[in-house]
């Protein structure tokens, strides 16, 4: 290696003031040479380092003031800004088109972005969120394969004691629903009965507005409620110390120990009230649970210690379980830990455990749609950027003189690039500000529609602003870069010699961009139409029963349940009620429908699985379900008879119902299968009839085997009355039904649903997506049209002389319009050609999600294509006709 090393010299050259560089380096090198002679190379080197260091002092680094002050960076920037504003205000139309396009694009982007941000930051409001995990049990037996978010009492309690990684644990157990009453004013509401361990409040940061938010669940007979429920019960939120009655057979009042703030919308927790676990810890049923290692009764969260590995902790939990509980052969159970942040979007395959069949599951997001919407948001923004690129490059010819003069008087390419980038940044910033305003105008409506509480103001999470800022800069650079690099490339000589910037590559690039824009637009249109059709299809599909005018009334007390026959009779006496049935679940059920193991008697093969609903003899009549074979239930004597649906009959190999005996040994309420009774004696039933298949689940699911047992069956209690009513005077009918119930049980509230509305909820998210897609599709098409309008205006301007000459030579307005429009229409046609297969593929993929769905028909494409063409034609025609109508004298008069 040569000494002194080059980099050291470079460093010195860079550090030392220009006017000293020569002598300093010379001195250093000369001295080095002298020392090599005198002391040898090694010493000389060491000295050289020290000498070099000696020059690194302010005296040598400080620059000499120059005679001519060099302009600071801001001077040039100010100039760029000034020119940008001048150019933009001189071309008002194009500026307006650009700003409008970008504003719409950014607005869509921000709205979708806010939505996605909210979905992606679920459950992160807790300060220990990164250390909180949900216990997931994986159970495999020969008959089932279950992944459930639940654990037993022992697992949750002992893990905390014995596993080093675990700092704390929290449990929730939900057993059903009951009336929660304020004893003073008798205000009463149906609430979920949930028991929580003290760890729940220690681990999560639920903010209390009254009472202590950390220790409120320590004592027995305490209850915490949320603000909203407090307001409903007491009309105030300062209610700590007051008592409430929770009517689930406790027989004593519960003291309110804390009032929590309402849950934020991006929290998976939705409880209104939690009773301390200590309240029931001495109850017989509960003590059975506390000694059990295998149950799935508790939704369990673990708080790990700092830097603890969740996989290791999960393995230790599994080992702990294995050490303490025997497993049947062929069964495997293991635990895994799911991070709190994953619960909302990554729980599709996980059963929400620790919930009674009477309680709704935690709400969940769908990752697929998050991805789709993210993609759409980007596409819309990209469309807006393309507009800017197109207009800027198209109009470059007008600025060729300016660029030429700038170059001739010494501007570097970089200066021109900065100039154009500044312009695009100015336009984008302006659009961004407008978009923020527009977003704030639209947010109230958007929030009602998405059922969220989004905001974009000074209180918004800084990450949102940071990301928006990033989007702003990226948009500005992206839209400005192509024109900037393209336009700054040309030689000044060509530019000043009246050179037309319309070179071929440029024009085809622009064409490509327009095609891209319209491809996206057409795909979105097709998607919207298909989504719309599918939603309409599921709403109108013949479900195998008549869903209209069915009122479902919940049975919420033992008294009502035992008097079901009386109530049925009373309901039937109301003149507007046509017929009444009692069932354990209803078709279109939103709670868990139990499944049972089933096998014809004498058959030794594996059991099969079917859903089970308890029903009565009025079921078929009330729901208008068709009986295809055998007979209906006859009455109380039929308590061991069952009806099968066609699918179940096929599964069991039954073609004619003739009292075949079928065994039902066990059932599941979403968790593991458990025997029906202690003695493990199967429920022996006789198949008396077969009903036509009907859709008792959402149309996403295929019709599954279904057993209709008689109302008094050992599997599942009756839970609903369903009444078919007449369409007239529904409020009066409901009022009379309410009266009937209160006669039997004074505290019973009439809780009812119209079945068709309940069914529509299955598709509520689809409808929401449909609306969102319609708006985004409209925005995309609008933005694309703005761009097209700009290009058409420009093309007409460019060809004004040609049009003049053609007109003089006798071309008609129609000729000229066609001349100007056909270029653009060709592009839209190409876009259609690209969009159709893409849209077909995407929509077919989506429809696969539904077991019952429409086929994508050809006319959808035709409609979308024609729509795109018409819109594009209307946009272009305006300019084309305007150009064609101009008096040729005007355009040809002067050169």
């Amino acid at each position: 290696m040569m000494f002194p090393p080059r980099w050291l010299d470079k460093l010195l050259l860079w550090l030392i003031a220009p006017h000293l560089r020569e002598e300093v380096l010379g001195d250093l090198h000369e001295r080095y040479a002298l020392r090599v002679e005198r002391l040898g190379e090694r010493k000389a080197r060491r000295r050289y380092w020290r000498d070099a260091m000696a020059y690194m002092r302010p005296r040598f680094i400080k620059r000499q003031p120059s005679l001519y002050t060099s302009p600071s960076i801001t001077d040039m920037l100010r100039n760029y800004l000034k020119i940008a504003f001048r150019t933009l205000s001189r071309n008002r139309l194009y500026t307006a088109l650009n700003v409008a396009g970008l504003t719409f694009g950014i607005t869509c982007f921000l709205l979708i972005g806010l939505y996605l941000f909210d979905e992606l930051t679920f459950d992160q409001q807790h300060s220990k969120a990164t250390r909180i995990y949900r216990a997931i049990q994986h159970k495999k037996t020969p008959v089932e394969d279950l992944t459930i978010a639940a654990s037993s009492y022992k697992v949750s309690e002992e893990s905390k004691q014995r596993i080093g990684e675990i700092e704390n644990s929290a449990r929730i157990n939900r057993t059903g629903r009951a009336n929660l009453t304020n004893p003073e004013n008798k205000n009463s509401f149906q609430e979920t009965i949930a028991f929580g361990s003290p760890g729940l409040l220690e681990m999560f940061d639920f903010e209390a507005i009254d009472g202590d938010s950390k220790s409120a669940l320590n004592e027995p007979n305490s209850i915490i409620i949320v603000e909203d429920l407090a307001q409903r019960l007491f009309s105030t939120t300062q209610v700590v110390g007051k008592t409430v009655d929770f009517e689930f057979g406790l027989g004593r009042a519960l003291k309110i120990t804390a009032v929590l703030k309402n849950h934020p919308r991006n929290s998976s927790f939705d409880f209104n009230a939690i009773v301390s676990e200590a309240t029931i810890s001495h109850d017989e049923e509960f003590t059975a649970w506390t000694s059990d290692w295998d149950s799935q009764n508790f939704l369990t969260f673990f708080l790990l210690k700092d830097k603890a590995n969740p996989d290791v902790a999960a393995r230790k939990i599994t080992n702990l379980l294995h050490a303490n509980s025997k497993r049947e052969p062929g069964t495997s159970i293991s635990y895994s830990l799911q991070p709190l942040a994953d619960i909302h979007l990554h729980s599709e395959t996980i059963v929400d455990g620790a919930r009674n069949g009477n309680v709704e599951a935690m709400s969940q997001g769908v990752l697929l749609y998050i991805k789709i919407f993210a993609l759409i948001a980007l596409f819309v923004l990209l469309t807006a950027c393309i507009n800017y690129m197109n207009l800027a490059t198209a109009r470059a010819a007008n600025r060729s003189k300016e660029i030429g003069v700038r170059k001739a008087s010494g501007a570097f390419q970089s200066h021109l690039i900065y100039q154009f980038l500044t312009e695009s940044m100015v336009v984008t910033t302006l659009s961004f500000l407008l978009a923020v305003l527009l977003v704030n105008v639209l947010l109230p409506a958007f929030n009602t529609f998405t059922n969220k509480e989004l905001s974009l103001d000074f209180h918004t999470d800084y990450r949102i602003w940071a990301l928006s800022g990033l989007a702003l800069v990226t948009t500005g650079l992206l839209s400005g870069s192509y024109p900037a690099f393209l336009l700054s490339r040309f030689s000044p000589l060509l530019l000043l010699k009246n050179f037309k910037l319309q070179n071929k590559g440029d024009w085809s690039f622009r064409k490509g961009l327009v095609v891209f824009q319209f491809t996206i637009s057409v795909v979105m249109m097709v998607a919207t139409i298909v989504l719309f059709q599918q939603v309409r299809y599921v709403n109108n599909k013949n479900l195998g029963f008549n869903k209209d005018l069915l009122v479902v009334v919940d049975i919420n007390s033992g008294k009502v349940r035992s008097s079901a026959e009386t109530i049925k009779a009373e309901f039937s006496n109301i003149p507007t009620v046509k017929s009444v049935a009692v069932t354990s679940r209803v078709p279109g059920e939103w709670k868990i429908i139990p499944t049972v193991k089933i096998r014809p008697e004498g058959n030794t093969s594996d059991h099969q699985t079917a859903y089970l609903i308890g029903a009565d003899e009025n079921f078929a009549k009330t729901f208008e379900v068709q009986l295809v074979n055998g007979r209906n239930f006859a009455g109380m004597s039929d308590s061991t008879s069952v009806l099968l649906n066609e699918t179940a009959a096929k599964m069991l190999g039954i073609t004619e119902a003739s009292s075949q005996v079928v065994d039902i040994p066990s059932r599941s309420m979403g968790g593991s299968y458990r025997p029906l009774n202690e003695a493990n004696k199967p429920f022996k039933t006789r198949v008396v009839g077969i009903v036509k298949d009907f859709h008792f689940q959402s149309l996403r699911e295929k019709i599954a085997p279904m057993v209709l047992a008689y109302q008094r069956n050992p599997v599942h209690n009756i839970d609903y009355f369903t009444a078919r009513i007449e369409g007239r005077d529904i409020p009066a009918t409901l009022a009379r039904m309410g009266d009937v119930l209160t006669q039997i049980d004074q505290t019973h509230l009439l809780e009812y649903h119209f079945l068709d509305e309940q069914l529509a909820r299955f598709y509520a998210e689809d409808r929401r997506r449909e609306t969102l897609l319609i708006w985004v599709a409209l925005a995309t098409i609008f933005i694309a049209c703005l761009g097209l309008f700009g290009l058409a205006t420009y093309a007409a301007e460019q060809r004004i002389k040609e049009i003049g000459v053609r007109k003089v030579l006798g071309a008609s307005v129609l000729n000229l319009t066609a001349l100007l429009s056909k270029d653009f229409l060709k592009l839209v046609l190409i876009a259609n050609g690209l969009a159709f297969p893409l849209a077909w593929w995407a929509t077919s993929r989506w429809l696969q999600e539904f077991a019952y769905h429409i086929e994508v028909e050809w006319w959808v494409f035709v409609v979308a294509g024609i729509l795109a063409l018409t819109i594009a034609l209307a946009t272009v025609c305006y300019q084309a006709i305007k150009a064609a109508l101009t008096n040729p004298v005007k355009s040809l008069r002067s050169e």
Partner: protein
Amino acid sequence: MRRSDLGEFEEVVLLAVAVLTPKAYSVMIAEELERETGQTVSTGAVHAALQRLEQKGYLSSVLGEATAERGGRRKRIFTITALGGRVLSEVQAVRTRLWDRIIPNVRLEWS
């Protein structure tokens, strides 16, 4: 002329310039001082002192010729100005006067 205007190192460098004229430039001065004092003297330190002296008007400089070992770079040759010469002789006069006033047998005790 205040005494503080001339630091000790500056004084030595100024003297060295006077000694080495007309070939006084930082490398030569540094080498000379090393030889005389037996301590390492970096060109950087010398250069800095030279600049200070030039600012004060005790030295003037011109760029000299380039040599091969300097990598073709020119050197800056320093010459002492009249003011510089006067300051030097003043400093010397002060010292001589003080030296002369030391009683002879005191001096003997040290050597």
